[in-house]
């Protein structure tokens, strides 16, 4: 029986029927050193062309049975023998001269292999992120639609509740739990609602103007509400899954932007790597394409932020510095994403620098700047027009389109 045993630097074919010594090595192949990480990578990915290649090289007939230990669930005796002698064999065939060299080379090869494996891991994962974000969007749309339907439907029976319970998820839960009007008692409702709302709702249930519906009519409504609840549960699961994925794939981005915003940026650009190649100025306005093109074509105000507007740092800032904060944030995001692609973790430093910068902006601009005087405004307008025309001339000398320019109203000049 033949056994094919892989080591990091080569492959050995042993003829084994009970006794073992170096004599059992029938054939061997030492890999070229520069190929080793790739060969190990192929093995790990289940790419086994190398096995066929070796068989051919060693002239093994098809009928010959060869056990490839790498694919077995249990170790084999020849495999153990080779593993006991990894260094000795390598030395014998001139792969290393000293034990130290053996360790250093192994470290080098496995590091390269690990990098190859990790690269693939993050490449595949960003596609998963994109799908998950899209699924969440679909789900939100569907949930709104279904919830609206449930409200309309159940309102035939208990119209007052529609106004009292605003949250869709809660509404569906209440329908599923109580269903019949006589079940809406204050004590029971208190488990789900603040006592004030519970009081109002129970009162409304007692004197409802809704039509009477039969058991059969109501039970199908309950079924529908149950489905909505299960969709909400699915949504929660997706959100949690997305968070885990993001933490794994893009830790810097996740720390800086949060999982949902980070995921959205990846999904809008079509991948982590593509996102990492974008300049910060582009990241700043991702998601505001319409406004950006309106600005470029028609001379409207440029957008200050795209989806990164969702970031709490921007939302919590007063309007007159949001543009600045967005720019600072976009810069750090751009750096962070690049670090993600190359496998470094630098988010803590970035976040610190960002917070510092935002503090600085807040200190520097405590209140909105007053409108400039008329004279200066005119001056500015002239300058702007001139600049615009220059730019357009550069762009293949296109005729400058006269769009509906609204100048002087912008809040984004500075």
């Amino acid at each position, binding site marked *: 029986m033949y056994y094919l045993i*892989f*080591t*990091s630097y080569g492959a050995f074919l042993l003829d084994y029927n009970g006794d073992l010594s170096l004599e059992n090595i029938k054939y061997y192949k030492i890999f070229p050193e520069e190929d080793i990480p790739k060969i*190990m990578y192929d*093995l*790990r990915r289940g790419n086994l062309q190398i096995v066929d290649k070796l068989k051919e090289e060693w002239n093994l007939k098809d009928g010959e049975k060869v056990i490839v*230990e*790498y*694919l*077995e*669930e*249990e*170790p084999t005796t020849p*495999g*153990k023998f080779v*593993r*006991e002698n*990894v*260094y000795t064999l390598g030395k014998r065939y001139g792969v290393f001269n000293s*034990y*130290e060299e053996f*360790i*250093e080379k*192994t*470290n080098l090869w*496995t*590091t390269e*292999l*690990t*990098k190859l*494996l*990790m690269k693939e*891991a*993050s490449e595949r994962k960003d596609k998963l992120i994109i799908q998950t974000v899209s699924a969440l969007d679909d789900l939100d749309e569907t949930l709104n639609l279904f919830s609206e339907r449930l409200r309309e439907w159940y309102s035939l029976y208990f119209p007052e509740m529609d106004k009292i319970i605003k949250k869709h998820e809660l509404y569906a839960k209440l329908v599923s739990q109580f269903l019949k009007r006589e079940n809406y008692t204050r004590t029971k409702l208190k488990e789900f609602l603040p006592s004030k709302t519970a009081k109002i709702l129970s009162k409304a249930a007692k004197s409802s103007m809704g039509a009477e519906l039969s058991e059969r009519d109501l039970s199908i409504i309950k079924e529908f509400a149950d489905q909505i609840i299960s969709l909400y549960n699915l949504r929660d699961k997706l959100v949690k899954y997305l968070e885990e994925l993001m*933490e*794994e794939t893009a*830790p810097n981005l996740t720390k800086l932007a949060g999982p949902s915003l980070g995921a959205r940026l990846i999904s809008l650009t079509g991948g982590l790597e593509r996102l990492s190649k974008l300049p910060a100025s582009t990241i700043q306005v991702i998601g505001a394409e319409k406004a950006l093109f309106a600005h470029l074509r028609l001379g409207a105000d440029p957008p200050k932020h795209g989806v990164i507007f969702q970031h709490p740092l921007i939302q919590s800032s007063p309007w007159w510095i949001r543009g600045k904060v967005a720019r600072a944030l976009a810069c750090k995001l751009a750096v962070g994403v690049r670090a993600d692609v190359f*496998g*470094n*973790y630098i988010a803590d430093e970035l976040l610190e620098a960002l917070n510092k910068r935002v503090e600085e902006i807040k200190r520097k601009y405590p209140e909105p700047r007053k409108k400039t005087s008329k004279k200066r405004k005119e001056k500015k307008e002239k300058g702007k027009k001139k600049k615009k025309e220059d730019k357009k001339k550069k762009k293949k000398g296109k005729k400058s389109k006269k769009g509906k320019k609204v100048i002087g109203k912008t809040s984004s000049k500075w």
Partner: protein
Amino acid sequence: MKVREIFDNVYEIDTGDGVRRIGTKSLVPSKRVYGERVVKIEGVEYRIWNPNKSKLAAAILKGLKVMPIKRGSKVLYLGASAGTTPSHVADIVEYAPVYSVEFSPRIMREFLEVCKDRKNLIPILGDANLPNTYSNIVEMVDVIYEDVAQVNQAEILIKNAKWFLKEGGYGIIAIKARSIDVVKDPKEIFKEQREILTEGGFKIVDEVDIEPFERDHVLMVGIWQP
């Protein structure tokens, strides 16, 4: 400051403030791995081994009697994480390889940084449940150290021992009761795990409860006698 060797290449370091500390000789002086304290005594740099961050250090401080990791021991380390304990293990074995398996690519990134400086740390991104997938890298070893928070951690140790552990070699396993079963009594769990290990081929020779450094954790040492 005084130094006393308590195990092969493991030192007790007395800095004079009454706290009992252990440390290892730094293989790459002037480099820190996880922000640990570094002291220089008679020209030799020691890295203080933090028991709050490393279960092996905690076990040593709590009176581990059998310490199988020595100078020159080849080690298979399952669950390398960011490299806190592996870096000290690498210090102890000096010029023998420490094959370090870690499952999460995210943490592997940090671990790779540690491997850059310590050439005897061999990084392996892989699943400890599937020893065959790294059988072409790992050789037969003297010690397997396992610290993976998995439900079947005892089985994982046995599986890997079958592939890589020399007969008479040692298995060290950090058992986290809470990751096996949250509600069960930890004592009960340790008993179960001990049985699984014994049946699998390990003769348990030492067992240390590492309270107060970690709660419901036990470090077991066994000899492989399949």
